[in-house]
């Protein structure tokens, strides 16, 4: 005998519909978990292995040489029955000392049978410096150009088909692959303008790449400032520029800065745009060790993303290179996180100042 069907308007529907709903819900849930797990695996891998390079168990707990020295070739050899790993400079000093000691004792100079691994010793200090310089420079250029054109488009230009076409073009620019920007920068700045592979070329290439983000974000932020502020200011006899400078831009700034800095943090991680325009595989001098001030702008630099690329694909892989790869990735992620975090803090600070 079947159970009696209750007779009220809230009777449970057919179980098939519920089954489908449950299945769809679970599929979506699983997709989310899958994404989460992938992300955690990638980050966890870098944090675990990179952490081993960057941190150490003894005081000062941070691997200072890794953060403050230039990359060196690693020499691995056996000496008096002991397996040794030394960086380039240390190895030379060690060999000299050992030779001198042998001479003093009247013995023949010791033979060292070494295996050498490029970039596997020392640190990544020049790459950190280079990346910070690239980020700061391209950010400044992108902000100046981007905010200026956003102000023009949003406040001055009339809404003609031409202006709409420009807007569309800017949006489309955001979809251009980074390698194309790299080639563009190479063609325009490095070859045509003859800037060589230089900081300046890298700055402009990266800046052009973030410009769509900066312009779009700035336009949004400017649009969010109420029209009443502009009219109120103009009605008091302010010119358009005075109005923008004193009564529009300050309120739009939090939005502009946050989105732009986040955009730049993303772009700073791109290898393609700088590999032809600004990055050197290796450079002994630090950027400020130049003779003339103008040389500063026309020198190439080492950079973290390019260094990761070089140590993971341009040199023979072995147990010693992994240390540098993961350590560099870790430091790089850390810098990007710091930039993003500071942009958010800055926004919160500015937001508190201007509320309406």
């Amino acid at each position, binding site marked *: 005998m079947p159970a009696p069907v209750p007779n009220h308007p809230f009777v449970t529907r057919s179980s098939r519909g519920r089954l489908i709903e449950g299945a769809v819900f679970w599929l979506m849930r699983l997709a989310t978990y899958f994404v989460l797990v992938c992300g955690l695996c990638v980050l966890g891998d870098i944090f675990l292995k990179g952490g081993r390079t960057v941190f150490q168990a003894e005081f000062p707990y941070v691997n200072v040489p890794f953060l403050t020295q230039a990359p060196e070739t690693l020499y691995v050899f056996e000496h008096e029955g002991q397996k040794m790993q030394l960086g380039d400079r240390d190895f030379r000093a060690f060999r000299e000392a050992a030779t001198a000691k042998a001479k003093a004792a009247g013995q023949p100079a010791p033979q060292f049978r070494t295996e050498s691994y490029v970039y596997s010793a020392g640190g990544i200090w020049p790459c950190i410096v280079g990346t910070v310089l690239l980020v700061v420079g391209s950010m400044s250029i992108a902000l100046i150009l981007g905010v200026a054109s956003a102000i023009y488009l949003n406040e001055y230009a*009339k*809404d003609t088909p031409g202006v709409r076409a420009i807007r569309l073009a800017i949006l489309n620019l955001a979809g251009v692959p980074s390698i194309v920007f790299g080639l563009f920068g190479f063609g325009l700045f490095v070859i045509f303008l003859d800037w060589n592979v230089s900081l300046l070329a890298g700055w402009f290439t990266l800046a052009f790449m973030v410009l769509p983000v900066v312009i779009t974000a700035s336009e949004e932020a400017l649009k969010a400032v*109420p029209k*009443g*502020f502009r*009219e*109120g*200011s*103009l*009605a*008091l*006899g*302010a*010119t358009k520029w*005075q109005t923008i400078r*004193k*009564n529009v831009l300050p*309120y739009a700034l939090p939005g502009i800065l946050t989105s732009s800095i986040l955009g730049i943090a993303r772009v700073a991680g791109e290898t393609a745009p700088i590999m032809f325009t600004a990055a050197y595989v290796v450079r002994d001098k630090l950027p400020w060790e130049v003779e003339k001030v103008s040389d500063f702008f026309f020198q190439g630099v080492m950079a973290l993303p390019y260094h990761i690329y070089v140590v993971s694909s341009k040199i023979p892989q072995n147990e010693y290179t992994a240390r540098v790869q993961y350590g560099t990735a870790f430091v790089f992620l850390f810098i990007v996180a710091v930039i993003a975090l500071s942009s958010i803090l800055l926004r919160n600070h500015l937001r508190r100042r*201007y*509320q*309406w």
Partner: protein
Amino acid sequence: MEPSAPLAIRVPAPRDVGATSTIIEIEDFNFSYGAKQALFDVNLKLDARRVTAFIGPSGCGKTTLLRCLNRMNDLIDGTVINGGRIRIHGVDINGPEVDAIELRKRVGMVFQKSNPFPKSIYENVIYGLRIQGVGSKSRLDEIVEKSLRGAALWDEVKDRLHESGVGLSGGQQQRLCIARAIAVQPEVILMDEPCSALDPIATAKVEELIHDLKKDYTIIIVTHSMQQAARVSDKTAFFYLGRLVEYDDTQTIFMNPANPQTEAYVSGRFG
């Protein structure tokens, strides 16, 4: 403010008006937003140091005419003056020699939606002076006090001049906007429904203020409240569909209008 039934409008006894002089002359003025004409052949002479009210049903062009007086409509794309002129002190304000910026310093404006800037009360009041490059601290302090007193706001905010103007109540915000407008010492103050977002008490304060300001300023006020027009204005202009229908002493407009349309509107039968 005495309570009055909506339809029975009590017009105060005519005040001692003294001699009047015309400051603004509007002659055969036509104005269009692109293809849409908003004003047709408006002729109007506005008195100095008096309050003139613009009344009329929604969309009849009151705001449009008001914003023509300080050329705020220049900022809207596609607007055209297709005929006629507006003179202030005999000068055609749309003439080639006239700078809209200078005009707006002389013809201030208070908006329907109060728009204090997200700055301190002090900075709000001196905004126009900062723009003009006045830097002297003592002079600014003096003007802030004078303007806030003029806007009947001083006693309420004198201890919090450096707090944000956005933190004030709606009525205080509107009076702050009036203080901001009078700080640059204009001759004319245009008010577009200044009380439409205010409660009766705040409205009464602003109306009282308008009454006081009349000594020094020419005031033109757009309002939807017949009572308000009757209470504050000396003369009233009634507009309908972009045309000026009737313009006369407020008392005449409300008690004895010449035009049946005016009569119908002020007695609340349409609009």
